[in-house]
């Protein structure tokens, strides 16, 4: 198994991002090339954070003065263990520790992190100029959604804060978001993001089928397939492309081969909204709506979504379940979300 691509780089400050030690009068200048590395990692969609033993106010002020504050999420500047800080950052960002890299000039700090969290990649700050060339720091491809990843995380933190402070019911909160979901056919321009969604999503993925770039390209032009993507925005910002549905068009049925939602929209009801779109379409076109579901240890939520949207099991074989829409109930879009159907 090759090591996973890095999704988050955690930086030390003293002697790593800047020269010298802040409380000893250092930190007057950034180390040469550090700014460019931070900007480039950001462009590649790799998130960045700080784990530094320092006085928070002083250190953060300095980061701000260098104009780097916007690049760092969930920074931990305190006198505690850096392994603990990295664990907290991973939890706040909700990404796996085996996709973390930690850059520090002090061998003892790297050692403490390696000892406690062996899956974190550690990098000696002396080698920082080699970072951009590392295979694990180089995504297969960079999509518009990747470059915007940091901004989307920031918006997500604002949403979470708004939700925790919201006094009403969760339905009222959803309404207050002013969500707009645009469902449209996948185009050539979307393919990298589509590929990324099929590879990165495990929880909200009904089958886990993967397709090569070439196969995906073929599906756009295929008259036997309907290939849709969904984009979401709300008052906090743009989530980008967060959903995908691939439907095989057979003589009498529509068969849902792929139904994928980004985990970021897990609590927004996007899966069922896309399903309602497909249900309406199948009724309009006089086709039976069939769905495939391939059970993994993480994607049970997709099965539950199908069951509560009026799908029943047709047959199960080797962990693969075929479901069919059998409900008589009329289904309408939830009233907290505005759906725009672009043909």
């Amino acid at each position, binding site marked *: 198994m090759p090591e996973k691509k890095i999704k988050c780089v955690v930086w030390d400050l003293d002697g790593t991002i800047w020269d010298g030690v802040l409380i000893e009068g250092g930190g007057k200048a950034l180390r040469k090339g550090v700014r460019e590395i931070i900007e480039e990692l950001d462009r590649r969609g790799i998130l960045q954070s700080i784990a530094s033993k320092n006085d928070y106010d002083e250190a953060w002020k300095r980061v701000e003065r260098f104009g780097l504050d916007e690049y760092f999420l969930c920074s931990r500047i305190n006198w505690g263990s850096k392994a603990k800080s990295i664990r907290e950052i991973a939890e706040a960002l909700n990404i796996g520790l085996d996709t973390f890299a930690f850059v520090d000039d002090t061998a003892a700090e790297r050692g403490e992190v390696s000892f406690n969290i062996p899956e974190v990649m550690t990098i000696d700050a002396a080698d920082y100029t080699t970072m951009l060339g590392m295979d694990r720091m180089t995504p297969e491809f960079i999509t518009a959604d990747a470059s915007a990843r940091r901004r989307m995380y920031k918006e997500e933190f604002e949403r979470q804060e708004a939700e925790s402070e919201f006094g009403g*019911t*969760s*339905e*009222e909160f959803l309404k207050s978001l002013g969500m707009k979901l645009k469902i449209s056919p996948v185009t050539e321009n979307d393919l990298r993001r589509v590929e990324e969604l099929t590879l990165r999503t495990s929880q909200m993925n009904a089958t886990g089928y993967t397709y090569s770039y070439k196969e995906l390209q073929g599906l756009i032009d295929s008259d036997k397939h309907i290939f849709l993507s969904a984009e979401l925005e709300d008052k906090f910002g743009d989530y980008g492309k967060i959903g995908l549905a691939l439907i095989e068009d057979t003589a009498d049925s529509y068969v849902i081969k792929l139904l994928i939602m980004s985990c970021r929209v897990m*609590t*927004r*009801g996007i*899966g*069922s909204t896309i*399903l309602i779109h497909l249900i309406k379409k199948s009724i309009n076109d006089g086709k039976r709506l069939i769905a495939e579901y391939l059970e993994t240890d993480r994607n*049970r*939520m997709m*099965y*539950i*979504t199908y*069951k*509560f*949207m*009026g799908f*029943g*099991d047709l047959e199960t074989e080797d962990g693969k379940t075929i479901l069919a829409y059998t*409900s008589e*109930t009329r289904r309408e879009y*939830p009233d907290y979300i505005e759906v725009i159907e672009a043909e």
Partner: protein
Amino acid sequence: MKDEIKNKVRGFLAKNKKIGELSDGDDLFEKGFVNSLFALQLIMFLEKEFKIKIPDKAINEDNFRSVDAIAVTVSAVVNNETI
């Protein structure tokens, strides 16, 4: 047992949507209460709260149609009865 389940379910519903008059036999789907998003969250809530795993074949609209139906379903799972 069933009363405890009903109380917790009512609490969950109240957090998600303004309840006016709701009796235990009312159809939650018809009341626009349980769309599939809330159904998903309801299942996760019940499984966590009662430390159970609701079997796949028990997951359907009928078993979760009303507060009464949910109490029957959950207590059957808790007591290991077939549904």
